Each structure stands twice: as structure tokens, then as C-alpha cells.
């Protein structure tokens, strides 16, 4: 019983990161119909820069987190610039492919700049361990779950109550109409990528406080976040959160009760099952388009 609880907390810790990444996939997909495969690398960039800022400049934690969220947003806008504007073909498939290339490039640059070193952050409330029902929980795990709640809640309000958010939603529904009303597809794309970058950065800062991160850890995380987004239904915000935590929990339980060596197949097995049986995911937010 204690073990189950312990594994569940472990699943929530990693699940929180998957959920944030899945949210980022969702927002980009809604804004551009493209899948941003550079997503995992943003998490890495944010995690590594958060750790580096903390180590070199000794800035307060809150400042570090704020700075990397801005850095993440800039990464997102930069992606839009590279993958949408420079490519000059804003059909979603080209953009998706371009993000794969950009992801590889980001990883290579990070490798060179960091010299393969790993960076870490202290926990947001210190190195505190909570004991809940016999399980030992890193207080940071709760912070990371809180980040997800804040991000998902903030996005929900933003997309419904803030004019810019409403415009983004409108553009996702009908880009032509939105453009005719003065909100261009380009603007929608830039904002979507920017927000996605900020979300990924929050995930990165949260993760760096749980475990040291280096140039190499974003790729797999991005793919698992993608599996989470697909499970929830690509483009659905609640789906992303549910999908993220579901993948995290399944992984933790699988490694605890079945096999830890093969825990990584969980996310991809889920992805395959979703693709075969219910390609729109649990929360079918998006019309299926034949491509």
C-alpha cells in the first residue's frame, strides 16, 4: 500500500512535466495545426539555463524561474521565426518537419555551450521531504503539480476572457475569418509558439529542481509529452493535463510492479494504442482531418 502511494507520487512528479509539455503541444497545434517536435528541447534549454543562472549569478530562485520562462517564450518565438517565416511555407507538415530539425540543432548547440555539464536548481521550498501516508514526497513534486494547475487554469482564463486569447481561439477555429478581422495567422502562430515555450520552460525549471539536467534529457521527454498530448486528444487542454499525469502514473506503476528496464515503452505503447483505436484521444477536441 505504501509502495503504491510512493509510486503514485513518483508518477505525479514526472507526470507534471509531461502535462506541461502536452499543454505546449496542444497550444501550438491549435494555433498552427503543426506539431512542435522541438518542444522537449525547450524544456532542456530552460532547465539547463535555470541551473546555470543559479550557479553562476546566484540569483534568487523566483527571479531565475521568471527569467527562464521569458527565455522559453523567446525560444518559442524564435521557433516560429525559423520554422514558419524562414521556411516560407506555412503548411503544418513543413512546419512540423522544420521543428524536428530545429530540435536537433538546439540540442547540438546546448551540448557545445554546456560542455555536457549537468545543472540543477534547489527545491522551490528547499530540500524538504513531506511524509504523506507513509510515502516520502519531495515538496518539489507538489510545486510541479501546482505549476500544471496554474498553467492550465491560466490558459483557460486567457483563452476565454482575454481578448488576445479569444483571438487565438478564433484563429484556431477559422484562421481566414480571424485574419479578416485583423488577427493574422502569423500572429497566431507566433503567440502559440511563444506560450508553448513559456510552458515548456516552467516544466524545465520544475524538473531541474527535482533532478540535474543536461543537454540530453529533452528529446525523450518531448516524445513522451507528445504521447500524453495524443492520449488526451491533440489540441485539448484538459486532455493534455489528464494525458500527462496518466502517462506519468502508468510509467511509475509499470516500473514499480512490472519492469523498470522497459518503463520507457509505456508512453509509446499508449501512443500506439491511441493511434490505432481512438486517434482523436480521450477528449476529442479536434475534428479529424484526413491528410
Amino acid at each position, binding site marked *: 500500500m505504501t*509502495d503504491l502511494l*510512493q*509510486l503514485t*507520487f*513518483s508518477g505525479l*512528479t*514526472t507526470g507534471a*512535466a509531461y502535462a506541461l509539455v502536452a499543454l505546449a503541444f496542444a497550444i501550438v497545434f491549435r494555433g498552427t495545426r503543426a506539431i512542435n517536435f522541438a518542444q522537449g528541447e525547450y524544456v532542456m534549454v530552460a532547465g539547463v539555463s535555470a541551473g546555470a543562472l543559479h550557479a553562476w549569478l546566484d540569483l534568487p530562485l523566483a527571479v531565475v524561474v521568471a527569467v527562464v520562462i521569458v527565455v522559453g517564450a523567446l525560444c518559442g518565438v524564435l521557433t516560429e521565426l525559423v520554422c514558419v517565416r524562414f521556411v516560407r511555407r506555412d503548411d503544418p507538415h513543413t512546419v512540423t518537419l522544420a521543428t524536428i530539425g530545429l530540435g536537433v540543432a538546439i540540442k547540438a548547440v546546448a*551540448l*557545445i555551450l554546456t*560542455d*555536457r*555539464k*549537468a545543472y*540543477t536548481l*534547489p527545491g522551490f521550498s528547499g*530540500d524538504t*521531504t513531506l511524509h504523506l501516508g507513509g510515502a*516520502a514526497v*519531495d515538496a518539489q513534486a507538489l510545486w510541479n503539480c501546482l505549476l500544471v494547475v496554474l498553467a492550465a487554469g491560466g490558459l483557460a482564463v486567457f483563452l476565454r476572457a482575454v481578448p488576445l486569447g479569444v483571438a487565438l481561439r478564433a484563429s484556431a477555429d477559422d484562421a481566414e475569418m480571424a485574419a479578416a478581422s485583423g488577427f493574422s495567422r502569423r500572429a497566431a502562430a507566433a503567440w502559440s509558439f511563444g506560450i508553448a515555450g513559456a510552458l515548456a520552460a516552467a516544466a524545465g525549471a520544475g*524538473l531541474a529542481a*527535482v*533532478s*540535474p*539536467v*543536461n543537454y*540530453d*534529457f529533452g*528529446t*525523450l*521527454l518531448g516524445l513522451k509529452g507528445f504521447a500524453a498530448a495524443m492520449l488526451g486528444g491533440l489540441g485539448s487542454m484538459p486532455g493534455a493535463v489528464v494525458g500527462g499525469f496518466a502517462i506519468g502514473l502508468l*510509467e*511509475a*506503476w509499470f*516500473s*514499480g*510492479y512490472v519492469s*523498470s*528496464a522497459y*518503463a*520507457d515503452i509505456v508512453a509509446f505503447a499508449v501512443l500506439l494504442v491511441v493511434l490505432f483505436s481512438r486517434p482523436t484521444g480521450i477528449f476529442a477536441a479536434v475534428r479529424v482531418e484526413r491528410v
Partner: protein
Amino acid sequence: MLLVAALALGACGSDDEGSGGSGSGSSGESASKEPIKVGSLFSVTGPPAVVGEKMRKGLELAIDEINAEGGVAGRKLELVFYDPAADTNKAIDQTRRLISRDKVDVVVGGGSQSGIALAMQPLLARAGILFMATEGAREIVQPVEERKTTFKATFNDTVVLQRMAEYLSEQGVKSLGFLPDTSGFGESAKAELEKVAPEAGLKVSTQSFDPTATDLTPQLTKLRRGKPGAYVAWTTTPAGTTFLKNARRLGIDGPLGLGIGSADPAFYEQAGAAGKGALLAAGKLPVYDLLPDDDPAKEVITKFVEAYQDKYGEPANIFASQAYDGMKLVAKALEATGGDTDAEKLAEALESLDTYRGVNGEFNYTAEDHSGLGTSDVAIAAWDGKRFVPADGAGE
């Protein structure tokens, strides 16, 4: 006579002995000044860049020192270097170039990745060129019957695991929770530990993890059910740090340890309080200055560390020392053959060298063992919060 033969052999690469054996010696004087060409591949760019850069520097330091003392058998060493950037195909092309165009006499360094060294090995063996690898995998030199002219200057994970198992057993630990990552490095350790642990009277249960994992709680939770007396993780990634943090958080208070892939203070520093007291099973380099003065390793390592610091203005590490040792060993063998670069003669010379005290330990190559290092060169260190200190008393 020997020198002429050596030169002719070197020039002809894979040709058999006959071509140079009957040299008249007329060009002996000038020929003796011809440098011995040392081919080398290290990945100074690409993922293993940090490792490769240190290896190249270690190798160059060794060559400089040897040349400053007049070279080997009257001939200077000349380095021919390529960077395969962790790409095995590139490394194969470069190895062919070393053989046929550069006509190198010996090769030291196998691309900074075991996979590359393994790919280079058959090419060099066929060309009759002695290959001193500075990479880790056992398979580079095993089975030894098929690797007669291939050696390596690194620890087999077997001896490191063996020493660690012995140490834990001495500390009264009966069962071990082992967490290797799922890379080749971890998988190999997993297989080897299963062989060596029973000899040390240690019962092992194993849970693997992905090298980029950010949470090892599930693995530890599962292992904890068997109540092992100690836990050891085997990886080259920051997951080693996560292991220490997660284990202490779960309230595990027995000994925790990391392996030779984690011989970097950063892994322990970043674990904070959880890093304190954690063990490291690796060579003696991290604790060299704390070894007792009568430990013969101390003088050799000190000399190396200081020379490296002087030349490059940065601290040496285990990777630099492996390449350094590899070159020095080959030079010893060349000294013994009088400069003859025939691979089989050099192999014989290496196998019959007296014990060579290198930075990594005492090398004792035999016809059966082309790794050379034994468990006595492995030190168990503990992180005291600031640095590594010897955990196994004398360090022997």
C-alpha cells in the same frame, strides 16, 4: 638492422617481414632519425567531446614528454590525429586513411567511444598495426585469441565491480540493490556483477533505468522490498545524482555508491546533503593526494597531474590519464623492440613488460589479459561534502 626492418615495415604497413628483413643498413643512419608515426582518433567534437578532448591532451602530453627525452629508440614520435566526432563510419574511413595513406606505425586511441574502438580493431589487426585502445568495453580486447595485437589502457568494469563488491562485503553488507542504466555501459556492468558478486558473498537484485531518467523512486521502491544493505547505481549521466537524492529522500540510510562513470565531483555536489558519504568505485586519481606516501601510485599520479596542469592550465581527469598511460605503454614496448613496430613483436613486448606503474595503476599485460589493470588499482572513495577521500583505508 632492427631499425631498418622497422622502418621498412612501417612504410609498407601490412607487408610481411620479408620485405625489410634483409636491409643492408646503408641508410641506417638517416633512417634512424625518421619519426615513429602514432595514429590516433578521439572524438573532440560530438557527444563524447569532453572525454575526447581530455584524451587528446593526455596523449599529447605523453608524446611531448617522450620526445623531450629523446624519443623512443632514437626516434621521435609524430602524431597523426583525426576527429571522428563520434561517428563510427567516419572513424572507419579515418582508420583506413591512417593505414594506407599516413602509414602510421602504431595506433593509440579508439575514437573515445567503445563502439568506435570495436570497429577500428579488425581493420588495424588486419593491417598488422598495434592498437592501444583508451576506451572501456571489455570486448575491445576479448576474446584475446582473436585480439592478439589489441590492448587497452582502461579498467574492465569487471575489476571495478569486483572491488566494490569486496568492499561492501568487508563492511558487512550481505545484499546489494543495483541500478544500472540501460545503456551499453550499464548493461555490461549488470552482466558482470552477476558473475562477480557471488564470489564476494553478495546477493544482488537489479532494477534498470533509462539514462535520462529524472526520478528513480520506482526502482528504489521496488528494490527496497528486498531490504538490501547497500545500493549502487551505474551510469554516466546525471541520473547518478538523482539516485542519491531519491534514495535518501525515501529514508534509505545504508551505504550508497556510484561507479566509474560518475568519477566527477559535480555528480556528488549537486546531490547536496544526499551526496555526503556516498561512495565512488573508480581509479585512484580522485584521491591521489590523500594516498599514503608509501603507495607507489601517489608519486606517479602526482607527477602526471602536475605536468597536465602546467601544460593545459586545467585539472587532469581519468580520461586524460588513460590516453597518457596508453601512449607510455606503447613507448615502453617500442623501447623493448628497439623501435621495431611489427604488431606481433610489440604485442609480445607488452605481454612481457615488467609491471608498469601507470597513472591508472599497475599494468600487467599477459597473453590472456590485454586490459592489464587489476582490482588493487581500484579505490573506493567517499564524498565528504567537498571532495573525494579514500574510504578503504590505505587505498590499497
